[in-house]
């Protein structure tokens, strides 16, 4: 059984009004347990919309979404997934530690267990000395790392991440990518990951879903076969470059308007 199954999904914003936007049209996608899938495409092609639909933060105009064998709403209420947004979305009145502990608190974990896990998470995102700071006392990139720590804290079976590393410097970004892969390898977590960086998508994913805008739809799914992920030499292997080329070509081919790949980076 797949962890996420999306069929014939469409999302139209402001339907019937002058500012109507067809954000997604007839999108079908099935993601298996333990799979790492990236969504890539020029900005405005509906990546965030698709992720929010899976997270049940939006209602689809038509189509079905099944997450962990349940309706999207039920799995949201059951906290089956952890999510990190483009904007960190932390709670300003809670310290960094308290933000990370919130999902654990909601799951009814006791204090000692919560504190142990949040310390572990802070080490992971390399912010142990900021435990008692408030989010507004941190830089944008640091806030994003706290949001990632919060998403990972409960070890949810499904992770939904929307350009989570966008505000990070290159060094931290590579560290976080490696950590994410090792967590997934250790826990069998399924990940849906939005990015606009081709190398990032290829490095992290089993499959890269290429999307195109107006209307937003899936134009190609590129399989990446880099077994033995998660080591320093991956980025130098010929398979890595082959996959990058395949994704880039898919992006180019999907751009029927001639200005393909707008907003997609090669770094």
């Amino acid at each position, binding site marked *: 059984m797949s962890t996420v199954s999306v069929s014939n999904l469409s999302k139209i914003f402001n339907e019937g009004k002058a500012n109507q936007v067809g954000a997604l049209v007839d999108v079908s996608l099935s993601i298996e347990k333990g799979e790492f899938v990236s969504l890539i495409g020029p900005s405005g092609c509906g990546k965030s919309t698709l992720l929010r639909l899976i997270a049940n933060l939006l209602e689809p105009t038509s189509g079905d979404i099944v997450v962990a064998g349940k309706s999207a709403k039920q799995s949201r209420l059951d906290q089956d*997934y952890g999510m990190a*947004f483009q904007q960190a*979305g*932390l*709670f*300003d*009145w809670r310290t960094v530690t308290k933000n990370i502990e919130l999902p654990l608190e909601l799951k009814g974990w006791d204090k000692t267990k919560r504190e142990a896990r949040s310390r572990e998470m802070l080490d992971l995102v390399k912010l142990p000395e900021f435990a008692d700071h408030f989010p*507004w*006392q941190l830089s944008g990139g640091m806030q994003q790392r706290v949001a990632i720590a919060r998403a990972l804290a409960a070890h949810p079976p499904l992770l939904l991440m929307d350009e989570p590393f966008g505000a990070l410097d290159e060094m931290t970004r590579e560290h976080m990518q490696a950590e994410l892969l090792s967590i997934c390898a250790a826990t069998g977590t399924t990940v849906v990951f939005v990015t606009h960086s081709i190398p990032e998508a290829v490095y992290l994913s089993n499959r890269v879903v290429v999307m195109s805008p107006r209307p937003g739809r899936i134009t190609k799914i590129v399989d990446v076969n880099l077994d033995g992920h998660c080591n320093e030499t991956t980025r130098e292997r010929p398979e890595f470059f082959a996959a990058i080329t395949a994704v880039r070509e898919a992006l180019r081919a999907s751009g029927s308007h001639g200005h393909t790949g707008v907003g997609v980076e090669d770094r």
Partner: protein
Amino acid sequence: MSRLRSFAAAAKPFALGMGAVVIVWQAIVWSKVKPTSQIPSPAMVADALGGLWSDGVLLSSVWNSLHRGVLGFLMSILIATPLGLAVAMVRGVRSFVRPVLSALQQLPSVSWVPISIVLFGTTSTTVYAIILLGAVPSIANSLVSGVDLIPPTQWRAASMLGLGGLRSVRRVVLPAAMPGYLTGLEQGWAFAWRSLMAAELIASTGDLGSGLGNILTVGRNSQDMSLMLAGVALVLACGLLVEKAGFSPLRRRVLSSRGLAVV
């Protein structure tokens, strides 16, 4: 120790301001524009306060008014908070309750005093009714505005954590709306205190224990200007006490923990 020092630092400009008022006041008395029966000197007012103190009236009046005011204010919070949350979060409730709240908020609650006296007599029920009518709309409306100003990113973060309904109220909605809510509480207290004084002035007889409004009424009936000014000074002092000892530290704590400027 440092708290004491910061209190002293805050009290200094206030003491200077009040000192200036007393000096100007004394100068007016010395210039003899009016007889001291109409503009009594600061010393005479101080005497009147001393008299109230030795009679035991000062403490009992302050206690009567303050505890009525605070009790009425706490009742207002208990009513206004769920009401404000319901208006802010339930669309059906909002559409018809919000206009009523806004209408009530601009209506001076003193206008209810005559009706209330006819209904309840000059009892504490009347006093509390007037306080509630003054404070509840103001607290509830500010809470609604506070909830309306919560950014979408915070709602989204709450939803993705599986929070909804009452659980989200405690963990997200109330804390996120706290700055606006606090403003509402401060405003609500000001309304409660004003309403109480008005009610005490108008309904000063009957089985109500005598409060600060009563001192003013006694002063008026005996044409005792010093006593009335002593009463005014006590009303002012009580209002300031609640503001400085209650709300200021609370506001400072809430705002500074959110990185918001503290004024």
